[in-house]
């Protein structure tokens, strides 16, 4: 972790306490998680207690305290996706990747996330891979897309 980056981020928000969530977002955008060192830095610079920052970092689901994988697999479990068999797709993705939501594969290639709603309900069930959305998923389609992605590996498009 580059301390300078964290300093720059805090500077951008003029070291304001009220910008804490934005600062954490920016750190996470940069490192894909919130490294412990960065949180200590934030605490010092904003003159806040570390537990207070942990409180915010753990309250909001957007933040992760553990390193994330190279690729983000996001499963939508909103109501529209739920009634169109979203949970079955999640079960399939869990099986294919061998991890639970919130976890990362041991080779750090994939992280799995289950979210409340991606807001593209009309084409549910929806799965997103590194921000690219796939609509009208089925367990089998999800298996095929992940399979292709795993094969192509680094940054290949499904």
């Amino acid at each position, binding site marked *: 972790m580059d301390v300078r980056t964290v300093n720059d981020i805090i500077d951008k928000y003029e070291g304001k*306490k009220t910008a804490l969530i934005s600062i954490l977002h920016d750190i996470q955008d940069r490192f894909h998680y919130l490294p412990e060192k960065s949180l200590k830095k934030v605490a010092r610079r904003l003159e806040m207690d570390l537990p207070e920052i942990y409180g915010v970092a753990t*309250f909001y689901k957007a933040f992760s305290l553990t390193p994330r994988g190279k690729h983000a697999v996001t499963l939508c479990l909103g109501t529209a996706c739920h*009634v169109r068999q979203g949970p079955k797709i999640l079960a399939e993705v869990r099986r294919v990747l061998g991890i639970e939501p919130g976890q990362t594969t041991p080779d750090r290639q994939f992280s799995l996330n289950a979210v409340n*709603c991606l*807001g593209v309900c*009309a084409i549910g069930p929806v799965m997103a891979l590194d921000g690219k959305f796939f609509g009208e998923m089925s*367990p089998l389609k999800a298996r095929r897309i992940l399979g292709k992605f795993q094969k192509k590996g680094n940054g290949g498009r499904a």
Partner: protein
Amino acid sequence: MKKIRSAAELKQWKAQLLSGRKKSDKIIRVCGGRGCQAYGCQEVKKAFRQELRKQSFKTPPILKYTGCRGFCERGPLVTIQPGNIFYQRVNPEDVPLIVSETVKKGKIIDRLLFEDSKSGRKITTAQKIPFYRAQTRLLLSQNELVDPTRIEDYVAIGGYASLVKALFRMAPEEVVAEVKASGLRGRGGAGYPTGQKWENCRRAEGSPKYVICNCDEGDPGAFMDRSLLEGNPHSILEGMMIGAYAIGSNQGYIYVRQEYTLAYKNAEIAIRQARRAGLLGKNILGSGFDFDAETVRGGGAFVCGESTALIASIEGKVGEPRSKQIHTVVKGLWDKPTNLNNVETWANVPRIIQKGSRRFSAIGTEKSKGTKIFSLVGKIKNTGLVEVPMGITLKEIIYDIGGGPQGGKAIKAVQTGGPSGGCLPASLFHLPVDFDSLAQAGSIMGSGGMIVMDEETCLVDVAKYFTRFLQEESCGKCLPCREGLKRMGEILDGLTEGKGDPESLSLLEELGEVVTDASLCGLGKTAANPVLSALKYFRQEFEEHLQNKRCPAGVCLPLIRYAVSAETCTGCGACQKVCFAGAIAGEKKKVHQIQVALCTKCGACREVCPTQSIQVQSGGRS
């Protein structure tokens, strides 16, 4: 872009933009909404750009992205002017033909048109498609006219003219009075009269005052606000500016749900462009009114859709709600008077100012005025965003606009109002949709989620889904909500696993009442609604789970099993190929069998079976 310093300059700018446009009457509009992006609209637009270069034109046609059109399910959507030709499910491979035939010669390509499933007729323009025809698209219709990343597009369709009218021809009190007279009520779900809220905030002592746009849109299954902010961000900004002028505020915040990356981006672009044009900042258009806005990214917490929790989140704190004995219009953001409205509420404001409160209130019912946008999704043929006059019946929305059920199955219920709402049975589809009627029936209109459920949706499972959702999202401050929901979830788990005890249902009702009565904020107060409404209208389904260990919809995994129908199975082996568990036995061309002990019930076999021979069974001995 030069700074616009007066109302006259804005008018001039608009005139310039319109005269510049006349160079070509051919316009290709590609929907750039999130849904169409999932289907590859970016590739389609790229293909158009390449093709337009390849095929020569005297005056090159205009190619642009637009905001979300709402009919996401048929994406990518493309319209061609002149003729207003509406193409759906467009692939990049279709583009050369579209350019050579439709754009050049005005010829229509039949296979890209929408086909009405009832009449089998091909329909050329969007206006004639039943999905659009039965709507009143006052807000959403602007989405298709503007590229959300271009302030010029918004100005060209008359954008910011309402702001001019408010700033130069109306006193702040008059703006408040106009909004009050319109009868506009908060679109976030609670339905509080907007004008009244503005007046309360205007009268509140203290400064500075703030305005907030709530685009947290936490209800799963709803995306009206995303579509509006993402598709026409300047209209939201204009609404906020008018509101700020009326209230006496100079600073606004747009709080955007973390998952809505494109809406956030487009809102940021809009703010930057408005600043550059002088429409945000000091002395706007020379009126003496100062206003600026900022975007704030949410952190992925449902409770932050609640106003006090959202405010805590903007302040950089944990998003816990507080008691509303002193309302946020008096003591809100940083303890200053704050007026918070939902995206759709703000979106209505410019139109009310422009066309007058009477035009607005001519639509709707006595107590619910104007149009409302719904996210019509789930087990229904036409899914997407629909904007309808308040007071329209559920039946009209579901059957006339939505086209009825998918695949000939029977529609059983519709869930409205998100996790605070409830499930209404088909027997109540004659009810008008407005703030009050659905509440009387045990649900709410809410922010506009409308999830249709058919015979293959299990209402016990849906009740469990919402209870678990709310348990997860409860901030934990109040015990009844924190613990009550957990216990309700456990009871529902038991039911869906065939382990319910005879008192389950009465206990659910009792717990539901306690959670409703003893929680502090809206989340807890309404958290039992999905369960209580499901119990009210679908008790039989709960009883089946409890007494017969049977899931009639075939959803609850512990209660179902997959089996092959011996009558129709041709022994093609397709199911065997996809079964990773190796649970399907049988020789080629002979009837296959599923070995229950190995089957994980993933459903892959059912998906591939060409003769629909895989059945889901429930009840009896498994």
